[in-house]
C-alpha cells in the first residue's frame, strides 16, 4: 500500500518532468500548420521543412563550429590546468579550486553582459570587432565550459592511483613516456566526460550567445528563438526533436566509454 502510493508519486514527478518532451515530439508530427488539438493527422513534413530552412541549417552549422572549437580548447587547456592543480602543490591551490565554482557563482547573463561590454570596448578602442566573426562566440563558450572540463578531468586525476605511474617509472620509463603511455590513457574517462559535457553545455546555451551574435553568426538556439517571434508551426517542434536526439545519442555513445552515473 505504502509502496503503491510511493511509486505513484514518483511516477507523477517523472511524468511532470518528461511530459514537455513527449509533447513537443508529438507536435513535431502534426499534419497542420496551426496547433490544433487533436491534430487532423500526422506527417514527417515538418522535418523536411526544418532541413530546408537556411536559418536553422546555418544556426546548426554555426553552433557546431563554435561548440567544437570551444570544446577542443577547453578540453586541452582544462586537462593541463587539471594536471597542474592536482599534481603540483603551490600556494593558492585551494583558492583556485574554489574559483572553479565560478560557473555557479557567475550567472550566464552576467557573463554575457560582461563580454558584450568588453567586446564593444575593444571594438571602440582597438577597432577589432570580435562580435562580427565567430571569435567572440568562441571566447564566450570557452569561458562557459572550461570550468567543467577542469573539474571533470581533475576529479578523474584525483581518483587515479599514482603508484601506477611510479611502476612505469620504476620499470625504466622517462617522464614523457610515463605521461603518454600510462597517464594519458588513464585520463581517458575524464577527457571523454569533459568533451561530452563541454559539447552539450555549449550546444544548449542560449543566454551567453544572445548578446554577442551578429547577423550571419546565429547559433541554433538563437535561430529557434528568432523563428518563434514570427512563426508558430510544428517546424520548431521538429527542430527541437532533432536537437534532443543529437544530445541523447551523444550521451548514449559516451556511456559506453565512461559510466555517466559515476561522473555526473
Amino acid at each position, binding site marked *: 500500500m505504502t509502496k503503491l502510493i510511493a511509486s505513484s508519486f514518483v511516477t507523477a514527478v517523472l511524468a511532470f518532468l518528461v511530459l514537455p518532451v513527449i509533447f513537443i515530439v508529438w507536435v513535431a508530427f502534426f499534419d497542420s500548420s496551426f496547433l490544433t488539438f487533436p491534430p487532423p493527422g500526422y506527417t514527417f513534413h515538418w522535418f523536411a521543412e526544418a532541413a530546408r530552412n537556411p536559418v536553422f541549417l546555418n544556426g546548426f552549422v554555426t553552433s557546431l563550429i563554435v561548440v567544437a572549437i570551444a570544446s577542443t580548447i577547453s578540453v586541452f587547456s582544462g586537462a593541463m590546468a587539471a594536471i597542474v592543480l592536482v599534481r603540483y602543490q603551490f600556494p593558492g591551490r585551494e583558492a583556485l579550486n574554489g574559483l572553479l565554482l565560478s560557473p555557479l557563482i557567475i550567472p550566464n547573463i552576467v557573463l554575457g553582459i560582461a563580454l558584450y561590454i568588453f567586446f564593444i570596448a575593444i571594438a571602440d578602442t582597438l577597432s577589432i570587432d570580435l562580435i562580427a566573426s565567430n571569435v567572440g562566440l568562441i571566447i564566450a563558450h570557452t569561458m562557459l565550459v572550461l570550468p567543467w572540463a577542469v573539474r571533470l578531468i581533475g576529479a578523474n586525476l584525483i581518483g587515479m592511483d599514482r603508484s601506477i605511474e*611510479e*611502476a*612505469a*617509472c*620504476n*620499470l625504466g620509463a622517462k617522464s614523457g613516456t610515463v605521461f603518454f603511455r*600510462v597517464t594519458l590513457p*588513464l585520463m581517458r574517462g575524464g577527457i571523454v566526460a569533459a568533451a561530452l559535457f563541454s559539447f552539450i553545455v555549449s550546444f544548449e546555451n542560449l543566454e551567453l550567445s544572445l548578446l554577442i551574435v551578429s547577423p550571419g553568426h546565429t547559433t541554433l538556439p538563437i535561430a529557434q528563438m528568432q523563428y518563434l517571434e514570427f512563426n508558430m508551426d510544428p517546424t520548431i517542434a521538429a527542430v527541437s526533436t532533432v536537437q534532443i536526439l543529437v544530445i541523447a545519442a551523444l550521451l548514449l555513445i559516451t556511456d559506453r566509454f565512461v559510466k555517466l552515473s559515476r561522473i555526473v
Partner: protein
Amino acid sequence: MASLYIKNVTKDFGPVRAIDNLSLAIEGPELIALLGPSGCGKTTLLRMIAGFVEATSGRIRIGERDVTDVPPNLRNTGMIFQSYALFPHMTVAENVGFGLEMRKIAKDERMKRVREALSLVHLNGYEDRYPKQMSGGQRQRVAIARALVIRPDVFLLDEPLSNLDAVLRQSVGNEIRELQQRLGLTSVFVTHDQKEALMLADRLVVMKAGRIIQEGSGSDIYNHPNCRFVASFLGKSNFFEGHRQTGGSFTTAGGLTFRCPDSNLADGASALLSVRPESIRLGPEASKLDNTLEAKVAGITYLGSLTEVELGFPGSDNITVQLQNRPGAEFRADIGAAVLAGWTAGSAHLIADHGES
C-alpha cells in the same frame, strides 16, 4: 644479485624528519624486512631506494654504483606496490613486457622473456587477459613477474600482501620467498605485520621514528629485544621494573628478587626484566625452575590452541602466561586460587631501562 648500501641517509619533509641518519647494508641474496608501526619511515626508506624520494643527505649505493642522484627510471630496481599498480589498459603480456620495451629489447626476445617470467609465477596462458579480469592474488603475481623480468639489482616490496586475504597472503608470501631464494635476489620487504616479517625475512630491521631500533634474525630479536618497544612490537611480554644486582640477580621495584640471565648491564643499573608469556610454567612444574612466585589467578581465557592465564601479584602489575593446550592437560583453576609460577633464568631477558614506556 647486487648488494645495497645505505649510508647516513636523512630525509626531511619540511619540518618533519622522516628518516634520521640511517645506515643499512645488504650484501648478496638476502631478504630483509623493514618492520615498524605506521609512520616509522619504513615506506619512505623503500621509496628512497627506488628513487621516488630524494635523500636530504647521505648516500645510497647499489652494487658498485652510487645511485643517490640517479633518477628512479635508471636505478634498475624492481618494485612491488601495495595496490599491485598494474597498467589497467594493457594486457598481462604488455604489463610484463613494459620494462623490457623500455630497455629496447627486441620483440621476439621480449615475448620469450615475458613467457618465462609468467611461468615463474605460474600464470602461463594468461598473456592476453586484462588485469581487471584477474583475482587479487593473480594480479599481485603479475606485478611480481613484471618486476622480476627486468632482472632488477634490488627487489623492493611495499606491503605486497596487505590487500590479500589470509589464505592468499600465505601462498603469495611463500611464492615471493621461494622466488627470492631461487633467483638469489637482494630484497627489501616493507611490512607492519610481525608474523609476515618472521615468516619471510632472513633479517628483520625494526624501525621507529625514522631510525633503526634493532636488526637481526627473528629469534635474535624475539629473544633479545634491546628495548621495551621491540619486545612488545614483536610478540607479547611481561615486564618487571627494577635494578640489576651484583651476582646476577634482579630486584623489582615491588621487592621481588629473581635470578636473571647474563647481560652486559652494569651492577645496580636500572633495568626491565622481560619474560615472555610462553616461558612461564604453572603448578608443580614451576617449583623446579630458577625463579618461582606465589601468585593468584586473576583470569583464564581459553583460546583453542592456547590458554591465557592472567596472574596477580602483590606489588606488581598482572602478568600473562600462555599455556599450550593438549587434551587432558588443560589448565584449570578458580579465579582467585593460589598458583605457583616459575621460569628459568635463561628464558628471561634484561633490557636497559631508559624510562621509555
